[in-house]
């Protein structure tokens, strides 16, 4: 392989891995720290993408427009949505067994898909990236790289750093980690664990929606888009070790590289390479790369 092409492929892999991390980070919080099997995670991703599409005209009308404003409104609304969902549905699930969690979150997938169909319809829609990010950089004599993809990577790195700092350096992060390892103990120490979980859940939903909204100009929005990313998100969380942000980051990068180079070198089996990777890692590290607690 030509070294220039190889470097471009590495860039593709890093970029894909970062996006995967952004998508999976919310799931790591909800599944890893709160212990809820949340199949609706893909739906939150879809909600974010569709909001970025559907809210654009309204934001333009009331706030003067702009991509950043749309994404900000989208994050605000989905945080609220997450907070409410936790309150009305998820808070009853912590003590129930996993099957009931699966049933309810699967139900949510159907509800969100149907709502999407009623509210926005079944068409595929494209979203234009903001004008100040729509340029591209030339990489070789025939290929260019869109600036927007680099912007996505920058956002992903920012979110990863912020998450890491919040979880390891702040009081909130300390409480969250404590809550993850022992619910009863931390509530007996006077921390309102219910509210804490509500906040964590809201952040998780907002992260998924942010990923959807940011990725929308690249992926376009289409029915069933959430289901496509759900499984790979779970793979990343499982490889990374449940509840570990660091692990999820590393796992997302691994998956990015395996998926990218798998497609290039082994196109016939590209679909299963990621799962082979997961199987291999679980064989030697049954708890994932970085298991917490």
């Amino acid at each position, binding site marked *: *392989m*030509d070294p220039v*092409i190889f470097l*471009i*492929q590495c860039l*593709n*892999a890093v*970029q*894909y891995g970062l996006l995967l991390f952004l998508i999976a980070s919310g799931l790591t919080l909800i599944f890893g720290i709160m212990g809820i099997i949340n199949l609706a995670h893909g739906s939150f991703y879809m909600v974010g993408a569709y909001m970025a599409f559907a809210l654009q005209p309204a934001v333009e009308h009331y706030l003067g427009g702009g991509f950043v404003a749309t994404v900000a409104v989208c994050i605000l609304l989905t945080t609220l949505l997450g907070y409410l969902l936790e309150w009305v549905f998820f808070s009853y699930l912590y003590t129930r067994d996993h099957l009931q969690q699966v049933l309810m979150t699967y139900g949510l997938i159907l509800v969100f898909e149907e709502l999407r169909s009623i509210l926005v319809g*079944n*068409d*595929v*829609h*494209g979203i*234009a990236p903001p004008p100040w990010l729509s340029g*591209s950089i*030339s990489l*070789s004599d*025939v*290929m*260019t*790289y*869109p600036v*927007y*993809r680099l912007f996505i990577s920058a956002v992903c790195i920012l979110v990863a750093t912020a998450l890491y700092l919040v979880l390891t350096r702040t009081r909130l992060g300390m409480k969250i980690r404590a809550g993850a390892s022992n619910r009863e103990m931390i509530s007996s120490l006077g921390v309102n664990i219910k509210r804490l979980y509500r906040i964590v859940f809201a952040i998780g939903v907002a992260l998924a929606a942010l990923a959807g909204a940011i990725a929308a100009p*690249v*992926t*376009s929005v*289409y*029915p*069933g*888009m959430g289901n*496509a990313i759900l499984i790979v998100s779970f793979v990343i969380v499982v490889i990374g070790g449940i509840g570990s942000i660091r692990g999820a980051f590393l796992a997302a990068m691994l998956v990015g590289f395996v*998926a*990218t*180079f798998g*497609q*290039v070198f082994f*196109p*016939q089996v*590209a*679909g299963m390479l990621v799962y082979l990777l997961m199987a291999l890692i679980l064989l030697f590290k049954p708890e994932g790369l970085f298991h917490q607690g």
Partner: protein
Amino acid sequence: MRKILISTALALSLGLACTSPANATVKVGFMLPYSGTYAKLGEAIENGFKLYIAEQGGKLAGQDIEYFKVDDESDPSKATENANRLIQRDKVDILVGTVHSGVALALAKAAKASNTTLIIPNAGADAITGPLCSKEIFRTSFTNWQPGYAMGEVAAKKGYKTAVTITWNYAAGKEATDGFKEGFEKGGGKVTKSLNLPFPKVEFQPLLTEIAAAKPDAVFTFFAGGGAVKFVKDYADAGLRQTIPLLGSGFLTDGTLDAQGAAAQGLLTTLHYADGLDNPKDKAFRASYIKTYPSIAPDVYAVQGYDAAQLLATGLDAVHGDAGKKAEMRAAMAGATIDSPRGTFKLSKAGNPIQDIYLREVHGTVNQVIGVAAKALADPARGCKL
């Protein structure tokens, strides 16, 4: 007295029963996607079908048409069960379906096993009118091979020497790119690389990089729906539109142009239907369709549904509306000349349209016809023993 009454009643009812075949309705079973990604396609096919019936005054060969509907959900694992609902429960005379090729394969097997006439208004799997072909099965759409092969010829005539194909790793994509390869290499070109990725993955970046490395004269692709939107945009974003021409099977730009926007302008695709066809039948069809369904633009799926109804009409006319005379009806259908909005066509021995494949160019939000890529192109129907 009582006995006489009963026997009279019996005789009357028997008499009625005897006369009923002439007045009975023809039962048409739609097995189409009414939910999911293909829901709009199913709707368009049904609209087209019903439009033709309405134009005939709501009857075919003097018979009322009674409809039965099953949502096939584009799910092959439920296909046999869904087909049998129409065949065994509703006892339909004619099956019409479907969009998804995997579902259509199961549907074709069920139709064959129960000796029920099937008209396929979309699914393009080569096998249905290839190894699986049968006298019960007709298709008013296309095989995946047809647009691919036609584009291969076009590419060779344009003087391209090398090409790369890229598609999803599934039957429809493989059939389309194989068709392209056949047409292109017959014309002296060479397909240097066949790229594919698992269905329905849309992470194209690594493969676009491969295309940039291979630097072919042209790229041929088969994608549809959301994947088509993303591929066309990614191809443009990667700067490849300026250096390597992109050619596609028509579904690359059908129903997706609004979402693809500027990235799709000027793309060349091949299909058996196009915007701006210069034939009176198409103009009449479009006017009638827009009048009946003001909120939906007529498209290739509506045409295929419309032609499915025309094909059925030919069959029913030949047997004077008695759908029970299956063999005669099928013989008439097999020999039919369909005056389609796409241009008139006849069916091949295997039951697939022998039709012109148009070369189209994207202008704004239409696929404008700019010529005929292949005249009266027949699928080779490899493996068909009819």
